[in-house]
């Protein structure tokens, strides 16, 4: 399989605190890569570095390189806006635009990225909502406020919104941690359905979830990547003692 993202010597800081230390990792195209680790280990910072949203925060710094199809997204000539169109992101807490309807939420990315054709927008919105397994629940209330949806529906709406801009990679930062078990199961199902088309990187607290949905897993601890391997190997035959301790529940 091809390598979609190649991360080399990635370091990240918040002010003087180093959140990521020399991360090296390859992300396979059309695979699901899970990032696990205890709270504060840098896994969220890691995915936020992959679409250059980390640098939006005050005092946040990054160095190192992230190659997207061989092109460094941190090179001086790379426009972060264009990077983010190719690498979408779903956040931990569902964050639909509160002032917009369900339809407008999904259309926002398409419209504000310059496409004006009404039919095309409507088509892409419908396609994206269908792909996010939300269509049957919202098709009769597309013009109602997005904030009236349940948490799980809002999160699928956020996934639809991300899919609508047709990215190549989708980053998911604990997309199900704020949801109930049924909504979580639906999100996991959804990940399985869309992974043929996208490269997915998912951060999760939940090791069972990582085991269920991912092909590859990276274990982070205190800002370092301890181990990275096929998910089956990580969970059945961890090479590092710390990984083993974590997945067997001895800390974290």
């Amino acid at each position, binding site marked *: 399989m091809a390598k979609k993202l190649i991360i080399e010597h990635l370091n990240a800081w918040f002010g003087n605190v180093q959140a990521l230390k020399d991360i090296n990792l390859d992300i396979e195209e059309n695979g699901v890569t899970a990032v696990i680790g205890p709270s504060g280990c840098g896994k969220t910072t890691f995915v936020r570095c992959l*679409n250059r*949203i980390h640098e*939006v925060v*005050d005092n946040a710094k990054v160095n190192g390189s992230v190659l997207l199809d061989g092109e460094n997204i941190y090179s001086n000539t790379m426009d972060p*806006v*264009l*990077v*983010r*169109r*190719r690498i*979408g*992101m779903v*956040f931990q*807490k569902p*964050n*639909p*635009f*509160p*002032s*917009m*309807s369900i339809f407008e939420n999904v259309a*926002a*990315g398409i419209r*504000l*990225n310059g496409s004006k054709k009404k039919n095309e927008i409507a088509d892409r919105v419908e396609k994206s909502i269908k792909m996010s397994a939300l269509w049957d629940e919202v098709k009769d209330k597309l013009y109602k*406020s997005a*904030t009236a949806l349940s948490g799980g529906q809002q999160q699928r709406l*956020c996934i639809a*919104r*991300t899919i609508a*801009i047709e*990215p190549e990679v989708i980053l998911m930062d604990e997309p199900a941690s704020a949801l109930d078990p049924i909504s979580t199961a639906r999100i996991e199902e959804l990940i399985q359905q869309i992974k043929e088309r996208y490269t997915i990187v998912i951060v999760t607290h939940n090791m069972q979830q990582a085991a269920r949905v991912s092909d590859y897993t990276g274990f982070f601890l205190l800002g370092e990547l301890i181990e990275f391997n096929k998910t089956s190997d990580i969970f059945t035959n961890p090479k590092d003692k710390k990984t083993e301790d974590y997945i067997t529940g001895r800390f974290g």
Partner: protein
Amino acid sequence: MNSFSYLKRRILNRFMLFLSYGSAAFGVVILFLILSYIIIKGASSINLDFFIKLPKPTGETGGGIANAIVGSFIVVGIASLIAIPVGVMSGIYLAEFGKNKFASLIRYFADVMNGIPSIVTGIVAYVFVVVPMHGFSALAGGIALSIMMIPIITRTSEELIKMVPDTIREAGLALGIPQWKVILFIVLRTASTGIVTGIMLAVARVGGETAPLLFTAFNNSFMSFRLDQPISTMTVLIYNYASSPYPDWNAIAWGSAFVLIIIVLVVNILSKMFTNTKYSL
């Protein structure tokens, strides 16, 4: 020991509650008194002529304040045209890019400007607009009022834009939307109901100002639509007529006060209705 302190706390609670209710009631009663007095005194002078006729010279009965109503709308309109864009854009700057010394300075000046007596604003507009233009004008009045509106709109816009959570900004940026579009079409839209309320309140506030207009817009007994000429406004008319010795002029002043209060009330209610519409924060 315990039951005693519980009793004490309950009595103290009652007393404090009584104080708060009492203070609230005091404010409401005063407002009610002012309103009812103006309605009683003013409503009797109101008829159709009051809205469509011009003021009559001293001694003649009847007449209306059509020129002053039109004038007030023109002057407040000019002020809004200047103050809304400047105020909202300053608010965006302070909220989105305002983490530096320059922004703190702007914020500080806006707060100071909010506290400047309105008569001083009038003098400033007199010196910088009326004197160079060699005469009183509707434009000068509008500029004077806009000076009062800008800091109000700036600070309310800033506060409301800041209330939009960063997760919304990140959601927009993560969709590959450029920052200026995120601010203009997502953040501002999320805050828009509140900003419109702030603008309406600022309009209502300066609509009732007299002092800044006394030596800027001045006065005019005739209907005028010209921006470079003196213009009549309801507040200045009230000021002149209320302090005149003629009872029928006093009555017109009461009537104008009534109309002005109704307009301010309507603007306030409209702003409230706007805030309650769907999709607000």
